[in-house]
């Protein structure tokens, strides 16, 4: 039996080191975010002013009660780090669902129908690209108020452009392919052709875009929270933790380094996974 393209792709993926490093790191972060807080059993929002600014366990005055120390309000850094992982992952995944849906739908419509529909889709993409992401996100959050739902919606409504561009060009290619024409000939409805014939065939590139935009969303949330207009205290976000520790740069730089490195590792893991998927999905583009 000849292997299907999907099995071939999986086989290539299994041999790709970036897949194991990126995917493995991401899996570890995911597990830590899901079960970590329960195992640690410390409240990430509980303040304890008597035990503030404790060193991490490797520091001169560190202890085992707070493995990564405490912040300026005496909150346990490890507990906040784990809670922050939940928020970063939630925002990243939820945002990609929103932006992926918007972008894919627009791209499918533009690529399949062409003509005026495509012109309209292209115009909407241009508008989106013209709007400055960070500025618009800051303004909306400042005006409407900040909650996790609003952050997901705002970031999701801003980061769909790559989905639309990729879906559009892939759909254009497939719209004239034999299997799509056959489906049309046997009287399949347009939604059926778009969702059951075309969509599964462009899933590969879309998954690659999803990893790029997930990393993008995580970074954007961190930047917004760092600027004080993202996740609101007392919730723990890695961007917020860095902002809160900014004044400690001189004497306790690890307070910035701990959430900062966590953020960089998460983004790096997602990017590595995306690179591996890209190599597998579009090996001809591998230079």
């Amino acid at each position, binding site marked *: 039996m000849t292997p299907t393209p999907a099995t071939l792709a999986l086989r290539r993926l299994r041999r790709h080191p970036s897949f194991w490093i990126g995917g493995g790191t991401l899996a570890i972060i995911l597990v830590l975010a899901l079960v970590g807080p329960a195992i640690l059993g410390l409240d990430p929002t509980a303040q304890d002013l008597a035990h503030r600014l404790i060193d991490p366990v490797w520091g001169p005055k560190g202890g085992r009660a707070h493995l990564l120390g405490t912040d300026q309000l005496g909150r346990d850094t490890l507990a906040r780090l784990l809670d922050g992982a939940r928020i970063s992952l939630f925002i990243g995944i939820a945002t990609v669902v929103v932006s992926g849906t918007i972008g894919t739908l627009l791209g499918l419509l533009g690529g399949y129908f062409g003509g005026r529909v495509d012109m309209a889709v292209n115009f909407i993409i241009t508008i989106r690209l013209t709007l400055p992401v960070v*500025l618009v996100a800051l303004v909306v959050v400042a005006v409407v108020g900040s909650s996790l739902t609003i952050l997901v919606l705002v970031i999701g409504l801003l980061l769909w452009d790559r989905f639309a561009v990729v879906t559009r060009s892939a759909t254009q290619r497939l719209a004239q392919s034999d299997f799509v024409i056959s489906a049309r000939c046997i009287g399949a409805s347009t939604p059926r052709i778009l969702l059951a014939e075309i969509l599964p065939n462009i899933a590969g590139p879309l998954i690659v875009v999803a990893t790029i935009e997930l990393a993008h969303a995580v970074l954007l949330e961190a930047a917004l929270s760092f600027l004080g207009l993202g996740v609101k205290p007392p919730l723990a976000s890695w961007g917020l933790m860095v902002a809160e520790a900014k004044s400690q740069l001189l004497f306790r730089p690890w307070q910035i380094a701990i959430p*900062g490195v966590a953020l960089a590792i998460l983004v790096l893991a997602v990017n590595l996974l995306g690179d591996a998927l890209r190599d597998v999905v579009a090996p001809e583009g591998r230079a």
Partner: protein
Amino acid sequence: MGRFLARRLLVTILVVLVTSIVAFSLVHLSGDPAVAMAGEGASAADVAAIRTLYGFDRPLSVQYVAWVGKAMTGEFGRSYYLRESVVQVLGEHAPITAALGALALGFALLVSIPLGVLAGLMRRGPIDRLASAVAVAGQAAPSFLLALLLIYVFGVWLHWLPISGNATALHYVLPAVTLGMYATPALLRLTRSGMIEVMQSDHIRTGRAYGLAPWRVVIRHALRSAIIPVVSLAAVQFGLMLGGSIVVEAVFSLKGLGQLAWESIQRSDIEVIQALLLLTSLVYAVLTLLADLLNALLDPRMRLS
């Protein structure tokens, strides 16, 4: 070429018009900006006074038309917080951001073009791996983290460079590097892939077959074709950096447009916010237009699509 130009210009005007509607609507999302401007604990009479003073009691469409009409004549109202005309406020802050953006782009090009060219010429070699590491790191490091790291290393630890404000040219070094790193990965990747593509093309092979010196082939012939898309991407990246400079300016206390945007958002200075949204979009639209025109000039195939 004339038709292409006219079409592209028309699209740009439409895009700017729609973004102006978005810029206007965003600050009115909450319904009544007067409440935010009056601040906490303001009396109903104060809010009502602000509402009539700024004309927020008029229908939104009327307010929008009045705002756009004035914007077209270069009039953006007054900042209620700074008590200056918005144009004046923008004029004070714009040079700093423009300088920061130009330096950042310069840094990004200085890193990405030589590194990208060498990586493309010596694929899978050590320089290629270095280039790939730079691109991956530049993409993964959040700019505020990179900024704080640079402050720690070059300001606090080595005492080489100033870390806050914009008193001297040296104050721009760290912010420009931070912002430049943000633009580097895309430019680097494009230079590298352009180089790889062009080195495999016919005219390079011919040049080599004629026995031209390798450096001559690379610099005079390959680089020239590989650099075209990089130049237009650089224009687009410059537009993106105007938006990206908010974080960098906030960390380094540079009083540019980014800092102005951040502060204006916090004090609900809506005339300034609207003007900044429109201005940033306009600059981006014009830069992409110029990039497209450049591409069309250099590559005739583009004019047909």
